[in-house]
């Protein structure tokens, strides 16, 4: 367990270093995720060491958002000033992104599948 915590924190730190080099363009946590993925693919670290910690963190992600969620109360006055735009833009564009990405991905998968099937027949 402790080894897993060390590996995750070390990659988080590596990610933060890269993020600093990139002027904070991409957050360190996202870069850390990609670096950990690459390290596992290259078999630089044993997956079994990370698994228990990764499962704990990954399966409880909603919990870690609670402090940020409660933080909404500090901005209620600003939000209420622009509530109409935020509400309409938030709902419409979020659904739009969801639907576009999901349908496009599913369509590409079905399209690709039928194409490779056709190749097999030929």
């Amino acid at each position, binding site marked *: 367990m402790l080894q897993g915590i060390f590996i*995750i924190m070390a990659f988080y730190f590596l990610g933060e270093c890269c993020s600093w080099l990139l002027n904070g363009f991409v957050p360190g946590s996202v870069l850390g*995720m990609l670096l950990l993925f690459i390290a596992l693919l290259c078999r630089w670290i044993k997956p079994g060491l990370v698994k228990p910690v990764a499962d704990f963190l990954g399966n409880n992600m909603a919990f870690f958002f609670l402090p940020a969620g409660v933080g909404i109360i500090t901005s209620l006055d*600003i939000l209420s000033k622009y509530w109409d735009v935020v509400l309409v833009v938030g709902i419409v564009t979020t659904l739009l992104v969801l639907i576009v990405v999901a349908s496009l991905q599913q369509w590409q998968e079905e399209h690709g599948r039928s194409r490779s099937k056709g190749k097999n027949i030929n």
Partner: protein
Amino acid sequence: MGDPAQKERILIDNTKMQTILFSEVFIITLVCGVYLCTVWLYRKTKLALLHPLLVSIPVLIGVMQMLDLPYDTFREGSRIINFLLGPAVVALGYKLWEQAEYLKRHAVSILTSVFVGSVVGIVSVICIARWMGADHVLIATLEPKSVTTPIAMDVAEKAGGIPAIAAVIVIVVGIFGGIVGPFVLNKLNIDSKIARGLSLGACAHGLGTARAMELGALEGAISGLAIGLMGLMTAILVPIIEWIIS
């Protein structure tokens, strides 16, 4: 009753009480406890509207008001929980590795979908916000609303928006997308696990991923990848689209 000494003792008792209730130990216990109760409620009722996130936040705010717990004290006390968001994102790298086979097979389609999603997200924000008469500052604040908080704050600032408001909008949008997303996907008969995970991560970042984890391991991992891709593409595309439009 009117004895000043007694009054003073009550006052001291109150401050004593406050030092216990305003401590980190109490706040972390409170957040864990409230969250576990709401998870239990969610599992019992199986009502999506009673999602732990949606119930926990108002309950915590209510408890804070009841105890006169200032927000700054709460934020200080719950810092460890907030900090763990970072390692939780890093840990998605492991989840991603578990699904490496799927990724290799679908790399091109995933990149295409997220790219189109990112363009649609930015352009639709600009169009709708302009149509509603929003000023440039508000539009720039809204543009990155589908990406993870640190990227969103940075993108909003560079485009001329207000980072602090961007952060709040990102959380609000994420909660909405995470709660409503799976319903919409079911209604549209999206049964590809990659499409489900990818779209949740693309529209609702970490909160979408939290929800995708509930749907399955593959959905969760792909959703984590979508956070990174969507963040990267939006960060690159916002300045380009702003430049084209102006």
